[in-house]
């Protein structure tokens, strides 16, 4: 059956070491492939293996460590390994979600890179039978003053918006950070969540021999050929010129594809379905066959093409968007075709499943590839790359950090810095209300989206990571990212259920970077285990570094967390509600300034050990706060993160348009108290009588609780300092982004 594949029509290029290198294969990897197939590959086969064995598809540097992540819980229906993770949210319903990066394409062409990133993640979700109900996006850019930053921000934000807005899913949350370590390599991490019935979830695993393989969606062009390979190649000076054919997103086609797929899924017609993402047809077809222990035979002359003269190599590697592959019940072919016709989409039978366990590609009768299908995945290289543990950073003592002239002056300044300024400029470009179920819009802790108008059930979701913590201490930083996501969900009254992770790092071939990766993964694993917050899907993006400067990005393991609210009517929001309410903080305030925003922005130093995360404390404090919220005893709640207590209070005041009279605390270093970034803390408000009871209960439960002041007036007042008017503060907070982006295209 291993008829030697040979091209006879055109002169196939000689397979030279250069050509192999250009495909991103190391010499020993190529030898491994030769040994596997026992002969020289054809061009198409070389293309196929380069796609299957690159970092993006094979996870060759990360696989070993990803195994450490906990992936199980009674409510997990599907963990990592499918298009997206699936959790049970009760009543026969499932939430299906995932996050994925589109970093490198977005750096090259920010608008299209971002659109296709959003498109890809939406497809991952609806491939499984879920109607998408929410998106988020975690964005990281270089220093604001870097010459490319503004252009990238403008393009990425417009692209995220253009796709989601047109597709018709609300974009309800995300993150934006600026740091010089992203100068040569921005990060675009897109999250999508959809809803399905637990008994109508669709998987990629093919079953049955001789079943038709159907191509759906848009036509194939020469888009992004080698996109998947590009995603694993470091940037050099030249890649600005050496532009591959950029993929263009077509949200309109995707919307049609969604409706057509969901309509088809109403009927019992589909055996397996898989979207075409990175390395398009190759990855999707191999995956369907390998998962089902089946061979696949494709006849490429039946692939709908947008351009003439496309070769097998090009068709197998094209990354044209808005396409799907499906194994169909043979008797349902006409019914399925009619649905796709109705939606104006291509529908073509391009092959069948076989019992040979071979991946056979024919084009006009010529065998272009004939490879063992399971080995393409199973025998992909697996590396245990050397990794170095980072030296522990010293603790920064409060007395070593200068106090500001005025605490409120420092607050005012912080609220207008790039990382703490309002992101309104960003999220107002996203339709965050479509479908009518967004109960907490961007700007709070977690976004809250109800399932429908008639029920109390709602989902909370958030994106979090603090890269500067991860850089200073990968293990603690990994824990912190999970803990913050867990906390943000808790802060709205949600029960955290599961996460998706998007691990963005530099080159794994550098031991210090690999050390960051391993440290972060282990930290994430530990936090997930203790908090019972398993990982159900994720994505790894490596080689995020700039060859010109040699600088890797900050280690950025973005966590997308999802939780549930049984009754959204009891949810908490960050806004101050009533004058006279008492402001409390739960959790220990030790005044931890190492790696704080205060230290960086006011004292000009980015040093020290980040705040440690005690997961038992997180759990205890969080459970306490959630119970308070669910029994409707608090009037507002906000977790305490970047910038510390005073920043959290300022955000609550701005959201509620009511000020706060804060009481001076009897502490040795007020600036450390008010700006320290200790973890596991929540700021809440409650009426006076309730507040007293709550404090007593907290003490009994061994949870530190402090009264900070009263909600009142139109300014923030603290001790004897001149108070800070909210209108002034709001201006500082709101104006940074639009001013920065003025004239930006």
């Amino acid at each position, binding site marked *: 059956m291993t008829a030697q594949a040979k091209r006879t029509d055109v002169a196939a290029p000689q397979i030279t070491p250069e050509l192999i290198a250009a495909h991103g294969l190391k010499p020993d990897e190529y030898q491994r492939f030769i040994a596997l197939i026992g002969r020289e590959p054809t061009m198409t086969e070389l293309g196929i293996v380069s796609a299957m064995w690159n970092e993006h598809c094979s996870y060759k540097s990360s696989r070993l460590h990803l195994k450490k992540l906990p992936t199980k819980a009674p409510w997990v229906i599907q963990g990592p390994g499918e298009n997206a993770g699936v959790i049970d949210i009760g009543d026969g319903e499932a939430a299906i979600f995932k996050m994925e990066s589109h970093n490198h394409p977005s750096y090259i062409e920010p608008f299209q890179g971002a659109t296709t990133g959003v498109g890809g993640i939406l497809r991952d979700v609806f491939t499984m039978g879920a109607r998408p109900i929410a998106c988020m996006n975690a964005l990281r850019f270089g220093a604001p003053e870097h010459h490319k930053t503004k252009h990238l921000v403008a393009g990425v934000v417009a692209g995220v918006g253009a796709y989601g807005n047109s597709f018709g899913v609300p974009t309800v949350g995300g993150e934006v950070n600026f740091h010089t370590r992203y100068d040569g390599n921005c990060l675009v991490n897109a999250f999508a969540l959809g809803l399905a019935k637990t008994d109508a979830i669709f998987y990629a695993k093919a079953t049955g021999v001789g079943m038709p393989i159907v191509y759906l969606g848009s036509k194939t062009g020469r888009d992004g050929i080698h996109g998947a390979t590009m995603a694993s190649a470091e940037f050099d000076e030249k890649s600005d010129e050496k532009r591959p054919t950029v993929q263009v997103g077509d*949200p309109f086609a995707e*919307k049609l594809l969604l409706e057509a797929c969901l309509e088809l899924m109403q009927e019992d017609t589909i055996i397996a379905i898989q979207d075409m993402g990175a390395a398009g047809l190759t990855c999707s077809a191999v995956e369907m066959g390998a998962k089902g222990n089946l061979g696949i035979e494709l006849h490429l002359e039946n692939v709908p093409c947008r351009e003439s003269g496309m070769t097998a190599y090009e068709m197998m590697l094209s990354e044209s968007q808005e396409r799907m592959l499906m194994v169909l019940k043979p008797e349902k072919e006409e019914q399925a075709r009619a649905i796709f016709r109705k939606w104006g989409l291509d529908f073509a039978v391009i092959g069948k499943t076989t019992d040979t366990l071979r991946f056979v590609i024919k084009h006009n009768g010529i065998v272009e590839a004939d490879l063992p299908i399971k080995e393409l995945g199973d025998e992909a290289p697996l590396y245990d790359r050397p990794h170095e543990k980072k030296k522990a950073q010293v603790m920064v003592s409060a007395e070593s950090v200068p106090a500001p002239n005025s605490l409120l002056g420092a607050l005012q300044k912080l609220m207008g810095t790039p990382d703490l300024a309002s992101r309104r400029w960003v999220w107002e*470009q996203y339709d965050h*209300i479509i479908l009518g179920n967004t109960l907490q819009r961007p700007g709070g802790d977690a976004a809250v989206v109800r399932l429908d*108008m008639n029920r109390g059930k709602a989902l909370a979701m958030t994106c979090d990571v603090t890269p500067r913590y991860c850089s200073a201490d990968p293990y603690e930083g990994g824990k912190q990212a999970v803990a913050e996501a867990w906390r943000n969900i808790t802060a709205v009254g949600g029960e955290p259920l599961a996460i998706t992770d998007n691990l963005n790092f530099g080159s794994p071939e550098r031991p210090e970077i690999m050390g960051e990766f391993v440290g972060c993964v282990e930290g994430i694993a530990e936090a997930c285990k203790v908090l019972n917050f398993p990982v159900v899907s994720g994505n790894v993006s490596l080689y995020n570094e700039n060859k010109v400067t040699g600088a890797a990005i900050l280690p950025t393991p973005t966590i997308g967390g999802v939780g549930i609210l049984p009754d959204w009517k009891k949810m908490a929001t960050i806004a101050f509600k009533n004058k006279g309410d008492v402001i409390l903080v739960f959790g220990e305030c030790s005044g931890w300034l190492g790696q704080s925003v205060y230290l960086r922005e006011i004292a000009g130093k980015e040093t020290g050990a980040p705040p440690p995360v005690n997961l038992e404390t997180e759990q205890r404090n969080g459970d306490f706060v959630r119970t308070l919220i669910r029994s409707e005893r608090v009037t507002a709640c906000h977790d305490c993160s970047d910038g510390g207590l005073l920043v959290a209070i300022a955000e609550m005041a701005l959201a509620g348009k009511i000020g706060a009279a804060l009481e001076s605390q009897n502490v040795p270093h007020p600036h450390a108290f008010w700006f320290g970034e200790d973890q596991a803390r929540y700021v809440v408000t409650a009426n006076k009588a309730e507040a007293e009871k709550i404090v007593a209960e907290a003490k009994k439960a061994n949870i530190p609780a402090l009264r900070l002041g009263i909600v009142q007036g139109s300014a923030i007042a603290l001790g004897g300092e001149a108070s800070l008017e909210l209108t002034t503060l709001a201006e500082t907070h709101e104006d940074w982004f639009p001013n920065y982006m003025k004239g930006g295209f």
Partner: protein
Amino acid sequence: MKSAVIVFPGSNRERDLSLALEKASGHKSVMVWHGDTALPKDIDLVALPGGFSYGDYLRCGAIAARANIMDPVREHAKRGGYVLGVCNGFQILCESGLLPGVLQRNAKLHFICRDVHLRVERNDTAFTSAYQKGDVIKVPVAHGEGNYTADAETLKKLESDNRILFRYVNANGETDERSNINGASLSIAGITSENGRVLGMMPHPENAIEMPQGSTGGLGMFQSLQNTRKAA
């Protein structure tokens, strides 16, 4: 009130709109496919939903305005039937000639999603009878091309014929540059046909029908339509 919601490929607020119609009237609206050549019988209101019909490629609403179903919609309007176009629906109404003018890119070129204030300029229409004249209501917008533009003569006529039904205003009910979020001529957020039975508007009343959504400012419109039916 019996209503039909037209679904074009790329429409994406058809569910939001039909939910709002249903909430106010207690009746489900019929979804009608763009390729159909007739409306269902006894329809009082045809609603064109928001979205990006045909991707909003070429010009927003342009391709949809030429869909099969638009002929019967035009006939329905000619007969004096009610037509409501929201957001993309407004753009389609302009492109199909049922309303004058066009909707251009927002003056600042960005898509804008936020709550805005609208002033109800008349309450003697089927769409606004549940409001008071001069009411300031809060409803969200979500569009990239809502900048209403027409030639000077058309604008003058719209004004003199009292066909401007909603204007963007500040919280005090005054028009000003800041509240005119997309740069629309005369701060126009919504206009009607000469007989007042065709309304096109950019904001989304269907996303402001209960407090959890942030406002109930849009509910009055659906109640108005319901009252109209009762009165009729």
